[in-house]
């Protein structure tokens, strides 16, 4: 057992060489999907390293609050869970993949419990549940309102136990592609500024979402779509990118997440007249309709003048201090910290805010992308199990099921790869990459700043590619992003240091974000209907005859990205009208 994971820098292991060999699988990202994949690949005999731009426990999986879904309890079944998921997805999810996720969910939850997650218990000592949006049964397993954090730490602890090597605070700049196959990663060791080639037989992208493409967003500042853009640049198609989830309850001002578990525990949404307006929009499920439905309802209330300062109210007062303090302590604290509101006494102003992307790198149900040697799972991937709209507490499940399946699949794949590219090929690729990155450092400091462009991008996306969209707004957004891409070429790095140069990594991130934004807008323009999170005011209806299909975007050199389609896989649930 090594203490490798405890070390913050690994330059001593390299003996001054800039090319490292010897990994079967490199996992990019150390959130839930990445750690689960790494563990499983290691268990199946692969030599594995995890590379992350932040320490594993800083990953954004830790921000997931509400819980994780599985049909374990009596009266529930994986088929009901699958149907809820498919209905939630507005029938855009691939049903074969959903069947896998929902049928394997129970054993994954049990495995997590065996790893040590301190799940809430029912009085009989068995796992207990709470209700969640879009779910016809209470099947969400949880740890207070810090479920993601509890899972993240448990997996990190397991990773320490496994001895898998972690490169912490290493920032990936490109994938090492040889003859159309992915054979490693070039990454910046932030502690000393070295650009290093890590060769591998397979690369597993698990780098999370791209929330910062939007401003505001519930996502951490690190959620910049790095892995999605890296895979996209390496030739992997991205899918369902138009499906951007706005969470109904994000805190006024800061935009921080107020978990759906609040409504799961019984909280109300009120307009300025004090009405529970969801009774109008979703008479059966009310506040617990799926997220796209609730977000649109809030938007309409606010647009009709029944909002309060651009927000509606999330009212928990009737739940009482016991439920709030025991089951929702974190959001109670956040409302106190950021708005000085005690939710025991007062309702909290919330608005829909960008939260999650259903789309990502296209994969199959074993996390394989169409590019040989390239895998993806978690928010950066699109299997697709979430389709047009993800149900709350299905994202943690997605990371674990497909992280596990992908880890196993990658470990098996690497056995068929007999050799790695030569040192010479690695060094040549690395030299070109060093030149490209140095280019950022060498630009005249009179150029644009990454911060200014980032803010412009985020504001543009929130305004034009948000809850409601239309042709002219999307065209403006596309033109805006193309303009930002041009200006991006002048972004200068004013920090000339080598150690912990964040100006450089922020500039590189902005490039990833622009790729994600472009593919999102192109997909949203392409889909001429309203489905799930895509609500077009100019095409207000769902159109199964023409659009029961996924939109893929593939990068092409020297010309605009290519759009293509893949049919939705339907197994046993034909599309129906969606009512909550």
């Amino acid at each position, binding site marked *: 057992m090594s203490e490798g994971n405890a070390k*913050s820098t690994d330059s001593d292991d390299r003996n001054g060489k800039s090319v490292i060999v010897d990994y079967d699988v490199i996992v990019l990202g150390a959130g839930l999907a990445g750690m689960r994949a790494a563990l499983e690949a290691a268990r199946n005999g692969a030599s594995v390293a995890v590379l992350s731009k932040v320490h594993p*426990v800083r990953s954004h999986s830790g*921000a997931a609050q509400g819980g994780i879904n599985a049909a374990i309890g009596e009266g529930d079944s994986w088929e009901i869970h699958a149907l809820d998921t498919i209905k939630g997805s507005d029938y855009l999810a691939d049903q074969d993949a959903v069947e896998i996720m929902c049928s394997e969910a129970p054993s994954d939850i049990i495995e997590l*419990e065996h790893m040590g997650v301190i799940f809430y218990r029912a009085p009989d000592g068995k796992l207990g549940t709470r209700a969640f949006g879009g779910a016809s049964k209470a099947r969400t397993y949880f740890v207070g309102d810090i479920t993601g954090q509890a899972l993240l730490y448990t997996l990190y602890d397991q990773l*320490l136990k496994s001895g898998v090597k972690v490169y912490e605070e290493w920032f990936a700049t490109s994938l090492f592609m040889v003859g159309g196959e992915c054979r490693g990663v070039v990454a910046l060791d932030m502690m000393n500024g070295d650009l290093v080639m890590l060769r591998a037989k397979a690369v597993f992208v698990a780098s999370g979402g791209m929330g910062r493409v939007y401003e505001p967003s519930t996502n951490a500042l690190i959620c910049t779509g790095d892995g999605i853009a890296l895979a996209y640049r390496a030739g992997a198609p991205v899918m369902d990118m138009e499906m951007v989830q706005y969470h109904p309850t994000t805190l006024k001002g800061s935009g921080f997440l107020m978990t759906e578990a609040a409504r799961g525990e019984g909280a109300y949404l009120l307009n300025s007249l004090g009405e529970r307006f969801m009774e109008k929009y979703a008479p059966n499920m009310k506040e617990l309709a799926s997220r796209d439905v609730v977000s649109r309802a809030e938007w309409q209330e606010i647009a009709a003048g029944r909002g309060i300062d651009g927000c509606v109210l999330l009212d928990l007062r009737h739940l009482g201090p016991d439920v709030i303090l025991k089951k929702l302590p*974190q959001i109670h*604290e956040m409302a106190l910290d950021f708005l000085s509101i005690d939710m025991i006494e007062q309702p909290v102003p919330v608005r829909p805010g960008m939260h999650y992307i259903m789309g990502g790198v296209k994969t199959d149900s074993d996390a394989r992308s169409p590019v040989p040697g390239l895998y993806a799972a978690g928010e950066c991937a699109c299997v697709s199990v979430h389709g047009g709209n993800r149900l709350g507490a299905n994202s943690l499940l997605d990371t674990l099921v497909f992280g596990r399946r992908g880890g196993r699949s990658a470990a098996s794949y690497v056995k068929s790869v007999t050799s790695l590219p030569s040192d010479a090929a690695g060094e040549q690729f690395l030299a070109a990459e060093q030149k490209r990155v140095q280019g950022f450092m060498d630009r005249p400091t009179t150029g644009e700043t990454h911060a200014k462009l980032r803010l412009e991008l985020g504001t543009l996306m929130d305004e034009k590619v948000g809850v409601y969209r239309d042709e002219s707004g999307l065209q403006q957004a596309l033109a805006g992003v193309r303009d930002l891409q041009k200006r991006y070429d002048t972004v200068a790095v004013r920090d*000339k*240091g080598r150690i912990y*140069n964040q100006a450089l990594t922020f500039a590189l991130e902005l490039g990833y974000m622009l790729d994600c934004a472009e593919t999102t807008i192109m997909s949203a323009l392409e889909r001429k209907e309203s489905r799930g999170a895509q609500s077009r005011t100019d095409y207000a209806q769902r159109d199964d005859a023409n659009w029961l299909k996924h939109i893929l975007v593939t990068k092409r050199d020297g010309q605009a990205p290519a759009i293509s389609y893949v049919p939705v896989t339907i197994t046993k649930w034909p599309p129906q009208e969606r009512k909550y």
Partner: protein
Amino acid sequence: MEWTVVVGRYSPPGEPQPKGERGAPFAAPYEKAPPKTYQTFKVDLPEHAMVLDALIAVREYQDESLAVRCACRSAICGSCAMWVNGHARLVCTSKLREHTVDGKVTVEAPPSMPIVRDLVCDMTPFWKKNYSVTPWLENKQPIPQGEEYRVPNAAMEELIQEVSCISCGACLMDCESFAVNADFMGPAALAKAYRYTADPRDAQTTDRLDTYSKPSGVWDCTHCYECVQQCPKGVAPLEQILKLRKMAVDAGFTHNAGTRHADAFAESVRDSGRLNELTLMPKSLGLFNIPAQLQSLPAAFNLLRAGKLPPLIHHAIPHVERIKNIFKKIGGRFK
């Protein structure tokens, strides 16, 4: 409104050096930390803004080279603990208004940790301590097949206080024991140790308690309460350490200075109603531990010279039998 932020800057030798005023070296026990330069920034932010908002504003619009670790901005990721006016704080939930003293707030990397650059410290000591407590479940056998361990919810709720820990390191940064003994396991790691020791699904309870009872373990905490005060998530590491001590003593791990020290306190109070300071030190060291007793002689001599030596004859308080009764009623090891 306008806020003034004084930022401690540092870049290693060979790197471009930050502008600012050269600061004085730190006092012991932080004399190993390199001195920094201090640069003053003015930022325009709303009344309720946080210290992190100010740092981000500086980094985005005034000086791109300012290094700050941060991600979630809402006390979840644990990236942004640092010194604010000389104490460890998570800057994302520290309000400028509450930390502005004499018109400014001073922010710097804690001198108790190695520094990387500017506000970024090297967390290696923190992660090593975490690793040293075997921070994972060693499953109690047999593992239930196809189902969960059945445990009461109260047993899980007991652990949630530690599971709320976001590893920000604020506790270690301000830990007085760590400041003088780099080997001390530290508050967060020992809280984590409690989390797995007290987990009814863990099989290694006894081995764990043995390990944690060794020097630099639970008994090296000096109860200064800095960790309880600085923790932004209510983990209260000291409370977890005290629970571990009780578990260790109950499991029979009493052959250590820590237990003897605690026992000497209890016995003295039981027998005389108050503390016999004269016998406290010898009893803690172990009465037959002659080398250690001899080593403590110079300290005793200094106390004598300063007129601080406790009275040679120790008197019991009146009605001491009532104290003894209390001990009897409480039960346990001193009844």
